[in-house]
């Protein structure tokens, strides 16, 4: 069973649009009913990467509105609501029912609506005497955004800041953990699997894992649970593994400059919900969609940028050749034999040409789109010297050190402030030992360039804490980082000969966890199995090799991790499936801003104060 999250979510939404009646093979319900769809902002983000207006029309949805918009009555038409279960939405729904905007209301909440809110809704609609209009209330368990087949996000902002905030109380942290657990529960419910949960010891990962385990256990005990498909035949070979990590496990991935196509487009051009706005060639903003229906994006998303440019060239040449061929077959070269026999032949060729027109047009559009994107990207790279940043950071991480002059040269040279800051933080993370004088000079260089160094200070503090923690106890989670770094530092030389990509610590850990063999690196990781009775521990039969994995990163992830995990999964024999998800997908700049905010909070700020609000 391949875990295709996007397909499952689309199926659920299709079913919801058909008023939760079984959908037959052609994808439309048996009854043809025209309905109206109403959603809120969060659910709009869920729906827009998955469904286009064309698909909505196919399922009989004529109009679609935001719940906050001022809507007019459309009588005698059922309305499908897809909203989050919040007090404001309930108020809006009650207002709508009292005004009798629509004939019948089918309410679908993106996660389980708590009982008090349901009671509020009931009393509200009763008092306005419109309760007969509400025909159905459903919990859809769809509170997550799926961007690609194996990539999801919970769209919960600033979790890293909130979890690492020194002034956060227990209650706030619990709330955040609850929210994350809720999102993860929705994912598991949609996939209809009960995985084995593994996480490194300590930190938010452990809290989330144990809370999720508890929630799954409670749920499985109730009858009519959502996982009945799991059935009684449960073996380790069919259950996937859910690995939960915290951002502090590998901080560098969130900050570094990467030079592959997908991370570049996300980081530099701002890809949001698979949508991108760039400056068109003729001036004016063009908006593009980059998702799994774009063949070029799917095939070349993980290539380095220069290779992508070459690939575009190749595609363009192929397209030109095809167009020439079509022209030749129908066009003006052979006007010689134009009698009646060939009249038919010619018309046949013409018909073939017309039939192949849509396909050719589409190919041209895709090529044009990527040419435009690549051109804009190239401009940005040249201006910000991103290629040199990426290369130097890669060298730093592989070698563990950098020539001092080179470092200062980069910091004092030209480039954007944010890039310099990221480079400096990468230096800090990648260097094995903190050379105090070097750090001083780096800070001086940063201040010269008027860069806000609070993020830098924060990471410095974090690193010093980690160093002290590492020496204190041997069972800390940082051992994993140390082990992983040592391992690939040793094999770095070999790896450099074989491939130019460094494997991330995350990928390495996931690989080991999926293999399931006892390994000193991952012995620090905890195991939770919601299906097993509480007393049994160390059920060794569940540690077999796993074919499928769900990797979840608390605090913010990006396309670099996603790409690395997909690469790892493809290279395995047999091919494994890995789904990657995070609380939110952040660019490097956004993540550094969160670090800067934390730095300010801890009072480590510098002269240039940033006034960002989270």
């Amino acid at each position, binding site marked *: 069973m391949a875990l295709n999250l996007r397909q499952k979510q689309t199926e659920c939404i299709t079913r919801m649009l058909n008023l939760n009646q079984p959908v037959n093979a052609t994808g439309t319900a048996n009854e043809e009913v025209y309905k109206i769809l109403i959603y809120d902002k969060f659910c709009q983000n869920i729906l827009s990467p998955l469904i286009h207006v064309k698909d909505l029309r196919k399922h009989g949805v004529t109009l679609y509105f935001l719940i906050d918009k001022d809507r007019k009555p459309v009588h005698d038409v059922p309305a499908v609501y897809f909203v989050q279960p919040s007090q404001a939405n309930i108020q809006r729904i009650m207002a709508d029912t009292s005004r009798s905007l629509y004939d019948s209301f089918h309410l679908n909440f993106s996660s389980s609506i708590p009982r008090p809110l349901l009671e509020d809704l009931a009393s509200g609609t009763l008092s306005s005497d419109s309760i007969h209009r509400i025909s159905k209330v459903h919990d859809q368990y769809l509170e997550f955004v799926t961007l690609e087949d194996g990539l999801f996000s919970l769209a919960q902002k600033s979790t890293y800041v909130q979890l690492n905030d020194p002034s956060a109380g227990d209650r706030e942290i619990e709330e955040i953990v609850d929210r994350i657990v809720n999102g993860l529960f929705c994912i598991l419910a949609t996939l209809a699997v009960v995985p084995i949960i593994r996480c490194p010891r300590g930190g938010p990962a452990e809290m989330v894992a144990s809370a999720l385990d508890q929630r799954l256990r409670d749920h499985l005990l109730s009858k009519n649970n959502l996982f009945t498909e799991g059935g009684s035949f449960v073996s380790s070979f069919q259950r996937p593994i859910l690995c939960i990590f915290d951002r502090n496990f590998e901080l560098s991935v969130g900050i570094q400059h990467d030079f592959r196509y997908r991370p570049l487009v996300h980081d530099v051009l701002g890809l949001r919900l698979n949508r991108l706005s760039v400056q068109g060639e003729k001036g004016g903003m063009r908006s593009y969609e980059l998702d799994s229906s774009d063949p070029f994006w799917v095939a070349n998303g993980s290539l380095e940028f220069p290779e992508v440019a070459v690939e575009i060239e190749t595609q363009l040449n192929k397209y030109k050749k095809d167009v020439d061929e079509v022209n030749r077959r129908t066009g003006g070269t052979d006007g010689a034999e134009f009698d009646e026999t060939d009249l038919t032949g010619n018309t046949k060729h013409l018909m073939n040409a017309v039939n192949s*027109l849509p396909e050719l047009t589409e190919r041209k559009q895709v090529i044009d789109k990527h040419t435009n994107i690549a051109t804009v990207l190239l401009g940005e790279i040249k201006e910000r010297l991103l290629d040199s940043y990426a290369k130097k950071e890669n060298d730093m991480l592989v070698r563990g050190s950098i020539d001092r002059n080179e470092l200062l040269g980069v910091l004092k040279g030209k480039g954007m402030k944010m890039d310099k800051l990221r480079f400096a933080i990468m230096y800090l993370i990648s260097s094995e030992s903190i050379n105090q004088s070097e750090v001083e000079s780096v800070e001086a260089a940063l201040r010269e360039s008027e860069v806000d160094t609070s993020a830098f200070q924060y990471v410095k503090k974090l690193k010093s804490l980690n160093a002290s923690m590492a020496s204190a106890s041997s069972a800390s989670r940082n051992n994993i980082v140390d082990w992983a770094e040592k391992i690939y530092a040793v094999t770095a030389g070999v790896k450099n000969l074989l491939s130019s990509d460094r494997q991330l610590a995350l990928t390495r850990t996931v690989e080991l966890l999926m293999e399931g063999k006892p390994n000193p690196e991952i012995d620090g990781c905890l195991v939770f199995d919601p299906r097993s009775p509480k007393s049994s521990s160390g059920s060794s039969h569940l540690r077999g090799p796993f074919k499928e994995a769900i990797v979840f990163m608390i605090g913010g992830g990006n396309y670099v991790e996603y790409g690395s995990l997909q690469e790892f999964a493809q290279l395995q024999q047999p091919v494994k499936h890995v789904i990657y998800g995070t609380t939110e997908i952040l660019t490097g700049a956004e993540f550094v801003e969160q670090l800067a905010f934390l730095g300010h909070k801890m009072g480590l700020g510098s002269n240039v104060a940033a006034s960002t609000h989270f």
Partner: protein
Amino acid sequence: MHVKSAQSTFRDRTQEFQSIAEQRKKSFSSGSVPNGSSSSSKSEEQRSVVAIQSEFNRRASKIGYGIHQTSQKLAKLAKLAKRTSVFDDPTKEIQELTGLIKQDITALNSAVVDLQLLSNSRNESGNISSDTTSHSTTVVDDLKNRLMSTTKEFKEVLTMRTENMKVHENRRQLFSSTASKDSTNPFVRQRPLAARSAASSSNAPPPPPWANGSPSSSQSFPRKQMDGESQPLLQHQQHHQQQQEQQLVPLQDSYMQSRAETLQNVESTIHELSSIFNQLATLVSQQGEIAIRIDENMDDTVANVEGAQGALLKYLNSISSNRWLMIKIFFVLIFFLMVFLFFVA
């Protein structure tokens, strides 16, 4: 299995909701009586609106159902057309079915036009919200699209049927005796370039049932059959030395017939070209409705921005007006103070 799994990923809370409602109703039962009269008057005026709306809805759902049935019949026709062989040719059935489907499509077409008229008249009569207008427009558009795609499918099925007939004719030519060959040869002899005649007599039975239909599409079918005859003709040209002196009168007739067929062939080519142009036209019109995303709501953004701007302007006004007021009061106070000081001091 899949249906079962699909059903298990959501929970139906309707029962819970209704039980809560029941509980609350019992506690509210005393207070709900005075509300009854107001709600009834509201429902009176809504009823007329609802009546028109439901008329529209009923017709739309009837049309939708009709389209669904027609496409089912079309699927049956496609199956029939595919499975025909040379000797077992259910021409009559296919003919009946084709006639039925044609009637259905014409009826549905007029029904859709009526529906559009109804919705237009209702929109002009006022008292209808803008959302209802766009809803009804969208419904009519959707029905038109579906009807158009059904008609296209119908055309494709008929084209496929014609090609099958061509293939059958070829095979019939191969199997049939030399008698038919005799009748073709004189044509060939007389007009080697005519190249279109080929056993028109043997083709006589099939054209009439098709020609009786008389919509434009079916006229092209016998012509297309003739296209296929060019191949056997090339073979016949080799035997043209037989029986040249026969049948002068039929020669005349056959000459006329061959001319007619040539013309029909040209007509069929023109039909093909017209279908190509139709395709191009639909291509062009379909460009408009590609991949729009749900969140591409420019109006909302603009409205929000304008709203924000207005709010800011108002705030600015309030600030500045307050300031002016305060300054004025301040001046008056100072003035009085000075007057006071002057007269006292």
